[in-house]
């Protein structure tokens, strides 16, 4: 019911695509229209082959490679690799080629496998048999051979092979039921209607005799929108023209239910079906961490280029003396001598680039990807986020945004279904000021008749009684509910008297609650049969109303109507909708009493609806019919025309009464909101509900507290004063307080601080957002943002779906660029879910649209707490450490290399052996950081949940600020200096073995490398707060692996190598006592500053997290020993 938003959105994006020909014409069964009919342009349509695969067997390798190298990082590494291949560079191309090859291969295999699966699925789909009619006979063909215009037969429980216009069904009334579970996730049955003039064709022969053409719009991806027209040619008359809408369209991917078989004509096939058009993926969201990472990358790229430049320049300065450039012991070849100086300099520059290129490692991308992918499993695995009732767990639709969950500053939440259960219960109704409260159902037993009604006022008179019954009938008739019948489609309904209530299905839970409530008040809706709605009145008599028109609900009008004809021939229009949309259209009725009651109910947090009616005389009805028909047949702007028609029809109503439905808060919603607010997150509620209801919910879920001063920015207030005055007044109120308070109080505890809550409604918002004539549009927005910033909670009510997205965008683009999160459960929340940095869908009752379009989906609102405060926090600290550590360890790796150039005549000599260069990032230091970034818990899960304020510690990308980044970089430079000069002084002018033998340059490099591997790994060990056996295993395991590898690498003459420079180097180094001593010394010195910084910061300026850590440590000292002892046995089995 709330798809209009998705519709508008999609329409916006797709407009202009198919403008070349507005519509297509289809000859049903490929029969030419009789001569004299309009001439149509014949168009070519694709066959019904679905191609979701990206590659074919032949183009896989080139296309996949092309796609992969379009990523800037891969391209960079490819360039480095090519440079290494082409020019004479210090390192062999293997060092960068191997990791790149590895990454590319793994990705290609993954994508190839996925594509193979898609091929398989495509084939299965394209080859599955389809029945269609040829010359009056049923023929089976493969699905892919289906063409536009073919008439298809589909049996029960089959899926439709393409988009069909529903011609006829085996059901007499020309309806069928479908589920669109695989399209939009809604598993409820939807009714579709056959074209009126063709529903009589029940057999193959009949249908073959059909002579018709269909005109419809070109394919477009909106699942819920379709306009078309069918011309049925009879022998004698002019063609009959009928409008076609989405109710006549059966979509590919939907499944036929409860109907034996249907006939339909294919109008969109293959890649033009709405399902295929919806394959297009959503736009990519990028997290703040990723953005900082890219900035850091650019910084490092600059460092890399400047290093290469410095060395190139120095090299030529240094070489200016000829005995340095070409001493007698190291002469050049003729060709080298003759090379152009600039070419040589450029080659040298490239060679230096290659030498230092490891500062931006390939493996970082792989590790980050793996961390995100594997890490996201912890959300899906989380038992506490599993909802037993619905059997649903959290879903992760993208793992790119894991860490963004730890950065959220604004939460925009939907109310209905998100904060509340969306489990509606009919509370009361008010008819002309009399209030009726149905008794609760006891054990499913419906209390009969009038005894179920409490008369609050005196018993009504006869005219009032008439009104009362009219009210009940109105509620019984004005809805779009289907009655679910499990065993027999057309069989007789079980009487409700037997004690069994029937199951109602509707996309709106309010309707179900109302119809069920009315059932308890004596009127039971039975079913819709042959366009007659059957209801059972209090006397158990069946009343039949012919359903003439449904003016369906949409969220802009916020009401719906039905036009019915009673058995006595009277025509009624019943209208039901939000009070704000009903009251202005009412001309009669006890408006004031009802309004008072409605407002009272709204304050209690009940959802209210008003019911009105109008009696139509046949002439009026004729007029209405004409109006509607004209609008429905229109091919262009049909929706707009329909809306105008509805506007004209739904007026001059007589108010009957109002209903109140309670929507209970979700469990722990209040607790969750409180925790989120403590975490420094601003929570905004965006709802379509009326202000009073929404405000009551906000109080109930503690978004507003008793001491919250409410500021109203509503239409009512703006009517009194101008918008300008209201805004300035509010901002003065707000700023008076915040002005006297420093910004620190924002993070501090605001017990005595006045906090404000803002209520704004949709109309006021659109006034603020609307650019003013004089062009100074930004002014009000800024003012509004200023007010919002100072309010602890904001409630936006009466919001149209698109306005929700607008609000999110407004905040997202405000000058602080806060990270926003939108959570909602319905289709009306999709736009804001897509707009916000992180979109979370609640897997709710209103279908799965929101969950499908979200980045993450949770079963309940309360799971948001753990999602953000625990998972988000963990992901953020993990990935930020991952990013910083990766840069750090590569500074450590490359900076000694840079320093070495000063001692080797800037000749691009490598310090480390090729194997070390290649494996440093791939195997010696990769696993510990990956596992750290999966397992780290700097404080325990329970602490994080108990103390939401810890979330503030990481707000605003705290761990990736420039200060932190510079600290890490300098730590890396310091460590590199220690490694290099430690080894330098060690080797300078002396022997370090006890047998007097001398070490060479490879021993020097190996010493630096050994110290580095140990330091870098131990630095991570220092940062690890959570040592599971896995951490122990990978940290000590990688060190051990390094040693074993070095022993092996140096211990054997490797036949495939053309140099044996590492032979016995490592072993010889270990046989020297001073080498051991210097390794220990250098590791200690390298780690010292970091240890010092950690200890001093913890002692002098502890963050909240560190305080908690210390406190927990003190508490658990005694317990932990016992715990550890008891766990030793179980820990091994985990």
């Amino acid at each position, binding site marked *: 019911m709330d798809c209009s938003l998705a519709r508008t959105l999609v329409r916006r994006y797709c407009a202009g695509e198919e403008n070349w020909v507005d519509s297509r014409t289809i000859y049903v069964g490929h029969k030419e229209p009789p001569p004299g009919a309009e001439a149509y342009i014949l168009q070519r349509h694709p066959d019904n082959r679905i191609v979701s695969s990206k590659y074919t067997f032949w183009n896989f390798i080139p296309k996949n490679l092309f796609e992969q190298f379009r990523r800037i990082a891969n391209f960079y590494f490819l360039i480095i690799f090519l440079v290494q291949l082409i020019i004479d560079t210090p390192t062999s191309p293997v060092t960068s080629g191997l990791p790149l090859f590895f990454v590319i291969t793994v990705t290609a295999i993954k994508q190839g496998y996925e594509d193979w699966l898609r091929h398989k699925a495509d084939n299965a789909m394209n080859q599955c048999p389809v029945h269609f009619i040829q010359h009056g006979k049923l023929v089976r063909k493969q699905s892919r051979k289906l063409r536009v215009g073919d008439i298809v037969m589909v049996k029960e429980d089959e899926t439709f092979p393409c988009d069909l216009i529903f011609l006829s069904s085996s059901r007499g009334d020309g309806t069928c039921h479908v589920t669109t579970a695989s399209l939009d996730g809604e598993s409820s049955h939807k009714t579709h209607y056959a074209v009126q003039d063709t529903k009589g064709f029940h057999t193959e022969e009949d249908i073959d005799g059909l002579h018709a053409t269909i005109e419809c719009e070109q394919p477009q991806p909106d699942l819920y929108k379709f306009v078309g027209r069918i011309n049925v040619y009879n022998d004698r008359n002019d063609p009959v023209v009928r409008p076609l809408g989405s109710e006549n369209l059966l979509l590919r991917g939907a499944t036929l239910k409860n109907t034996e078989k249907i006939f339909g004509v294919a109008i969109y096939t293959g890649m033009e079906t709405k399902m295929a058009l919806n394959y297009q993926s959503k736009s990519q969201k990028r997290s703040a961490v990723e953005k900082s990472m890219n900035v850091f990358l650019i910084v490092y790229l600059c460092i890399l280029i400047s290093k290469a430049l410095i060395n190139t320049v120095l090299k030529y300065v240094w070489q200016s003396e000829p005995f340095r450039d070409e001493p007698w012991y190291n002469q050049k070849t003729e060709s080298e001598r003759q090379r152009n100086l600039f070419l040589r300099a450029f080659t040298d520059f490239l060679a230096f680039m290659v030498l230092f290129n490891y500062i931006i490692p390939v493996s970082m991308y792989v590790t980050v990807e793996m961390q995100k992918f594997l890490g996201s499993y912890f959300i899906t695995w989380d038992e506490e986020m599993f909802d037993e009732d619905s059997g649903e767990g959290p879903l992760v639709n993208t793992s790119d945004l894991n860490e963004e969950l730890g950065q959220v500053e604004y939460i925009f939440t939907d109310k209905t279904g998100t904060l509340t259960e969306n489990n509606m219960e009919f509370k009361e109704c008010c008819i002309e000021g009399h209030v009726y409260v149905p008794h609760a159902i006891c054990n499913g037993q419906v209390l009969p008749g009038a005894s179920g009604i409490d008369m609050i006022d005196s018993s009504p008179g006869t005219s009032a009684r008439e009104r009362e019954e009219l009210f009940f009938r109105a509620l019984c008739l004005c809805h779009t509910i289907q009655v679910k019948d499990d065993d027999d489609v057309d069989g007789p309904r079980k009487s409700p008297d037997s004690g069994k209530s029937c199951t109602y299905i509707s996309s709106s839970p309010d309707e179900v609650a109302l119809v069920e409530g009315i059932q308890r008040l004596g009127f039971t809706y039975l079913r819709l049969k042959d366009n007659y709605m059957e209801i059972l009145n209090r006397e158990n008599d069946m009343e039949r109303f012919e359903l003439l028109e449904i003016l369906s609900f949409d969220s802009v009008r916020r009401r719906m109507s039905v036009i019915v004809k009673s058995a006595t021939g009277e025509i009624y229009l019943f209208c039901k909708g939000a009070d704000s949309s009903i009251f202005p259209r009412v001309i009669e009725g006890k408006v004031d009493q009802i309004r008072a009651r409605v407002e009272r109910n709204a304050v209690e947090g009940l959802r209210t609806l008003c019911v009105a009616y109008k009696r139509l005389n046949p002439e009026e009805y004729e007029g209405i019919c004409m109006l509607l028909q004209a609008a429905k047949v229109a091919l262009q702007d049909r929706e707009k025309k329909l809306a105008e028609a509805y506007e004209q029809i739904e007026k001059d109503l007589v108010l009957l009464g109002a209903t109140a439905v309670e929507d209970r808060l979700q469990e722990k919603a209040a607790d969750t909101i409180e925790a989120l607010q403590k975490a420094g997150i601003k929570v905004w509620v965006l709802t379509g509900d009326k202000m009073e209801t929404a405000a009551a919910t906000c109080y109930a879920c503690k978004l507003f507290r008793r001491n919250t001063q409410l500021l109203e920015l509503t239409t009512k207030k703006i009517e009194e004063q101008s918008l300008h005055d209201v805004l300035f007044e509010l901002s003065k109120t707000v700023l008076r307080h915040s002005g006297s308070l420093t910004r620190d109080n924002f993070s501090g505890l605001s017990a005595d601080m006045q906090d404000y809550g803002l209520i704004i409604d949709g109309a006021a918002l659109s006034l603020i957002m609307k650019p003013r004539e004089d062009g100074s549009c930004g002014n009000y927005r800024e003012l509004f943002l200023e007010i919002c910033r100072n309010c602890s909670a904001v409630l936006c009510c009466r919001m149209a779906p698109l306005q929700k997205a607008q609000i999110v965008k407004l905040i997202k683009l405000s000058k602080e660029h806060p990270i926003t999160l939108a959570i909602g459960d319905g289709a009306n929340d999709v736009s804001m879910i897509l707009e916000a940095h992180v979109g979370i869908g609640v897997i709710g009752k209103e279908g799965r649209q929101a969950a499908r379009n979200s980045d993450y989906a949770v079963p309940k609102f309360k799971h948001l707490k753990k999602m953000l405060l625990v998972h988000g926090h963990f992901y953020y600290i993990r990935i930020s450490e991952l990013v910083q550590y990766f840069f750090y360890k590569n500074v450590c790796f490359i900076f000694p290399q840079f320093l070495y150039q000063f001692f080797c005549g800037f*000749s691009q000599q490598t310090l480390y052996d090729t194997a070390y260069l290649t494996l440093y990032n791939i195997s010696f230091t990769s696993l510990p950081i990956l596992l750290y970034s999966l397992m780290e818990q700097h404080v*325990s899960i329970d602490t994080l949940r108990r103390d939401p304020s810890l979330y503030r510690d990481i707000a605003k990308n705290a761990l990736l600020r420039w200060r932190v980044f510079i600290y890490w970089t300098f730590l890396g430079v310091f460590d590199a200096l220690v490694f290099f000069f430690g080894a330098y002084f060690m080797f300078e002018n002396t*022997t370090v073995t006890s047998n007097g033998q001398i070490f060479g340059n490879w021993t020097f490099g190996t010493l630096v490398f050994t110290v580095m591997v140990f330091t870098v790994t131990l630095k991570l060990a220092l940062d690890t707060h959570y040592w599971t056996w896995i951490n122990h295993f990978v940290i000590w395991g990688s060190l051990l692996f390094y040693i074993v590898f070095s022993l092996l690498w140096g211990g054997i003459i490797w036949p495939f190598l053309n140099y044996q420079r590492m032979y*016995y180097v490592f072993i010889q180094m270990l046989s020297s006592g001073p080498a051991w001593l210097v390794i220990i010394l250098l590791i200690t010195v390298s780690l010292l500053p970091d240890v010092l910084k950690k200890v001093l910061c913890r002692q002098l300026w502890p963050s909240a997290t560190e305080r908690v850590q210390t406190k927990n440590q003190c508490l658990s000292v005694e317990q932990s020993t016992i715990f550890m002892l008891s766990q030793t046995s179980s820990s091994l089995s*985990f």
Partner: protein
Amino acid sequence: MTWSAAARGAHQPDNTAFTQQRLPAWQPLLSASIALPLFFCAGLAFIGLGLGLFYSSNGIKELEYDYTGTAGPGGCSACALADRGRAPPPPCSCAWHFSLPELFPGPVYLYYELTNFYQNNRRYSVSRDDAQLSGLPSALRHPANECAPYQRRASGLPIAPCGAIANSLFNDSFSLWHQRRAGGPYVEVPLDRTGIAWWTDCHVKFRNPPPVNGSLALAFHGTAPPPNWPRPVYALSPDPNNTGFVNQDFVVWMRTAALPTFRKLYARIRQGNYSAGLPRGSYAVNIAYNYPVRAFGGRKLVVLSNISWMGGKNPFLGIAYLAVGSLCILVGFVMLVVYIRYQDQNDEDEDEE
């Protein structure tokens, strides 16, 4: 680790400690109370170690003499003057006289040192063919391209051993003479020219090509010595076990140094009367001055040094240990002060909360 839980959503996730992130874990905290004792202990240990290293380094004697001959009155100036042009300089010899007032305890090692010589220059250090040096007959006659311009002679003959490193083999030689009494005769001190290279290098990594008819010279038939060499590789030493590619001088030279100033082991003195060291008296080192270094501004030194368990004289390690040890203690005290002063404050803060 149950990866089957990857089936998302529909089923209840596995409840294992791993999937719920509740694996038992050790949660250490680097707080002042742990770091303080650590710093003091480390500091004390380092100072102790540093003192030991410092004294053991100080106990090592080292005598060095710069015989480049540019400055000073030494006898090598004449040779240095002759060393104008490049290869091959005329044979020249000079000597370094010194006297030891007391025993120079053994074992004594004789090194030569070169400065400003970039053995670690990339073009230089790749200019070798390890396959050729491992005695592979095919590689012997087809030296690797990296060796260029020392790959083949102008005549087309392959150079063995090829490359810049081999070509620039250090070819000064030293002999040590001892005069027990003033005016007495000089006795030659025996220099052990073996055991100066890594055992693995001259027994595994470097191999001569298989001799042809029992003759190493024939095995090298069809190759030319490097241009700077006066004699072919198989004639490097009269000792058949120490000639060709496995000649220890050659092997030592082929292990390229890390820095432009480097020492290489020339000989060990451990035989006869000199196994305990060099007794007191006058000594002379006779130097056959062949190697040109002044062209690139280098210097040549000859060094006599004895060695402890920690190698040669190297004050760096001891001083570094002492410095780091004292730093640890100092930092420890600073932290102690901070700890005592701010501990109370933190406690108060917590009380307030």
